[in-house]
């Protein structure tokens, strides 16, 4: 398949020729996305960064055999998805996910605030929203979680997600729909709880 030879693909080709500078540029461009993606699987920042490190090392080692047959981000997220799914299947992260959710609710350093600054109420809403997402993701299948994260937090198109997951666009459409409905239900439960406790989220 012919794809546009974007900047990332060009950098990756340079990495294949041994350029550490090109690798550093790729890392700077994509590290936040990869860490956020991993975080959705393991629930703690420390573990997410360990996985991200493994993923970037794998990316570096695979550079020599890289051929730009798809968008670079699709290639990167295929490595990331395989690595995260293998890690999740190897160990039990359910406990860590809940632990991570609790930690995040109490630790503003983990969930950075927007540069513009938020009022305490808004920041709390952000963390509660994060809790709702984490809770919903806990009940998602691994593929739903991967597809949802790539779609909602990375803005990837269904077609690219399908390539990443080696799946059809139709299957990805179902995965994302089911995952979005689960998050919607958790958000509604959160809002109902806040309304019952006398707080407004409107």
């Amino acid at each position, binding site marked *: 398949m012919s794809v546009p030879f974007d900047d990332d693909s060009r950098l990756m080709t340079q990495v294949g020729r041994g350029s550490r500078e090109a690798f550093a540029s790729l890392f700077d461009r994509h590290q936040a996305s990869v860490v956020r993606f991993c975080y959705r699987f393991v629930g703690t920042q420390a573990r997410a960064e360990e996985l*991200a*490190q493994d993923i970037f090392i794998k990316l570096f080692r695979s550079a020599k055999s890289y051929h730009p047959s798809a968008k670079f981000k699709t290639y990167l997220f295929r490595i990331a998805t395989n690595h995260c799914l293998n890690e999740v299947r190897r160990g039990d992260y359910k406990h860590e996910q809940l632990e991570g959710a609790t930690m995040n609710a109490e630790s503003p350093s983990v969930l950075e605030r927007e540069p513009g600054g938020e009022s305490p109420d808004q920041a709390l809403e952000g963390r509660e929203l994060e809790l709702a997402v984490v809770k919903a993701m806990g009940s998602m299948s691994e593929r739903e979680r991967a597809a949802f994260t790539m779609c909602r*937090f990375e803005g990837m198109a*269904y077609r690219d997600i399908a390539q990443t997951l080696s799946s059809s666009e139709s299957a990805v459409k179902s995965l994302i729909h089911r995952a979005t409905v689960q998050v919607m239900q958790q958000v509604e439960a959160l809002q109902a709880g806040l309304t019952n406790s006398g707080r407004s989220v409107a």
Partner: protein
Amino acid sequence: MTPQTRDWSEELTAYIDGELDPETAKAVEEQLATDVKLKALEQQLRRTVSLMATVPALEPSSSLRRSVLSKVEAPTLGERVRTFFTPGRLVGGLALASMATLAVVVGARDPGPVLSEEQLFLAQNMEVVEDLDLLGLERSDDFDVVASLHELSEGETP
């Protein structure tokens, strides 16, 4: 499947994401115009999708960059081998190895100087010969006498 029996809710998320083909998107819009429940679900989903943009973003720590870049900047075993075996070192090493091989081969072929029987005898009886000199004796018959004396003196030594 007719529009009436089809589960249009399955299409709503893709519709909101702009991922439906124009024909299906138009069909969804027609259903939304007539189905109140479907419209309510579409609004809930749309709100959820827009809320996801407000989920606080995780920022990687600065130590991650240092850690990853230091790992890829460390030369691999292959690179270390290639760096070590520069052409100069390779030629020098080959020359040394050739010389060592040659020395081993030549050494194996040349067993070294061969001693005559006389030289060997002298070497084995050096002490007796020294005693012959000491006593001022020159004849070969005296050798047996001095050798016997030597044996006797060794027997006396505790």
